[in-house]
């Protein structure tokens, strides 16, 4: 019940804010009459990485931005050779499929 309420609340918030797909910014009308460019800072109160992992449905101690393998976290990644970004919409689709192959694919991306 609580999770349902929380999800609906988050959906409402993000739907209203509607961050642009390109920049992650949205415009907010300020009290002084100007528009402000804002970005959502999520989980600003969370202390450490395990909470981020839980929120993103990821395994512990993995990057929540990219799909870097666990055994390569300590290696230098040049700016032009970054690992692919996480596509949570894809994870959602795979998760809903709930087949053996889909679960294996999800597990390889550190999701669950």
């Amino acid at each position, binding site marked *: 019940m609580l999770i349902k309420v929380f999800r609906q609340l988050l959906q409402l918030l993000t739907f209203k804010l509607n961050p642009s797909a390109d920049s992650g910014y949205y415009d907010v009308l300020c009290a002084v009459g100007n528009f402000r460019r804002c970005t959502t800072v999520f989980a600003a109160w969370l202390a450490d990485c395990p909470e981020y992992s839980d929120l993103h449905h990821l395994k512990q101690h993995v990057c929540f931005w990219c799909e870097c393998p666990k055994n390569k976290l300590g290696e230098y990644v040049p700016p032009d050779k970054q690992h692919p970004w996480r596509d*949570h919409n894809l994870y959602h689709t795979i998760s809903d499929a709930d087949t053996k192959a889909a679960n294996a694919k999800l597990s390889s991306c550190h999701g669950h």
Partner: protein
Amino acid sequence: MLRHIPCIISYLPKPDFLHSIQIGRLDHRQKWIFHIMKTHERLDNYNAILLSVPAYHDLTPKNKSYEEGSQWSGKKMKEMSRYLLGVVTQSLRGGSPAQRPIFNHAIECTRALSEFYMYARYKSHDDATLSYMEDALSRFHTFKDVFLLGRAGKKAKGKANALRIELVKKRTVDEETNAETWMPSKKRREMNAWWDNISHDIDVSKEFDADFNFLKIHLMSHWVEQIRRYGALQQYSAERHEQAHKTNLKDSWNASNHNLNYLPQEITFQRRILCLEVRELNLQALAQRRENSAAACKVLPSGADLAAPMRPQSYAKPEFMGPQHRSEGKHPDAIIKDFKALLDNTHDATHRVAIYSRTRECIKHKSRNKTYISDEQLHAIELCIYHGIKVQVEGLDGERITQMCRCTGSQSWRSGDQRNDWVWGTQCPGRCYGVLNGRLSWQLQQLFNIKLQNEDGAFVEYWLALALTTIPENSGNLDLVSKFVQVRKAPAAIALQVFRVGNIVGCAHVIPEMATSCKTGDGRKERWIVNSHIDLATWNDVYN
């Protein structure tokens, strides 16, 4: 949970400066440095230098070493990162030819992390600063293997212990087999060789099993991209939110009656404060609007006035901070009334001679007629001693910062050691000391003000400072490994100088070569490195 939200979820998390850098990575770095100091038997020296780091205008000296502190908060970590590289550089000075490459790599790696942290703290970025960040990160990854032993976890240590037991058994068998054939000297040599072999194999085993595969190291590789996307990192730091715990929760809790209905009271308390803040902002906005409308009615300046060149920003002269009230019984050793009394109360003979001769030289040099002052005149001069000086400096973003340089002379500071801060003293314009840009770091010894009567009867005030002077080594050029400038004490004849406080342009920070604190024993006070990592303004002035 977030998968049901109609937005790009990867955009939501922002880099948290406090937890991923200040508490996370800096804490790891401390542990690695601690390990390398312990391995190479430099821990005593490291702790001694750490405890003898001098004060800065917003930095108090530490009284606990790293292992003595039970918990290191983000604030303490941030403070320590301001001088850690200097302490590591001074601790790892010298060493055998085999140790030197390891020490150099450790300094390089620490420097790379410090530089990455310094650049990440910038409030605005451009392509150059972001490329410097990338460069620092790649250098860190190049040299990080020097700290690999410090990353050995329980599993690696367990495997190394098993290997050790196995090797010790082999050594015992070898010893028993050759017990009759080996002479005592041969036996000693063989045993030493065995121990070297065992320790080497254990290190290799630990290094093989240890790695840097943890999240906080990896997150740094995303930061440049995050800065390009969302701007400077400081604005997403959780530091602000954690500071707000005090004002939002603790203050209102203290204001409540601590009973069961404390929550409505806290909310009412916060509401009142917010109402007052909003009212204050409204009043400020109204006042600003009135000023703007008044300014609009003024006559505009003529073309000549507009064409006049902008005057450079003038900064206030250094300002002394209150005379010491010695007559109140706090310091019954002396009541300074005149110059002779100051000389009599200066216990150090070198200081006494320096104050006497240098003050006379300074007054002679600065006075209009270059008049010579006799001993009687000098002794009768009215004098007042001060314990600090306020200097206005320009910050990295052009804002004015007031720095307070303390100088307690031989007296204690807050029931501790005496506090005589280091300051930047400007030199002749023609003399440039490499990256120091014509400035030298000097240690204040005494701050005083004297009044002198001219030949025409008018009184002239001189605001003077006695300081321990230094001269730069290597012409003020940066050290190749640590990128610090080293200075040493000036020759004894000119070591103590009296100069006008107008020459002080800000606070400086240095790290001594050896321990100088009374708690850690004797130490030489002759060579220091100028700590350019103390703040961003000094970093920009001194580093390049």
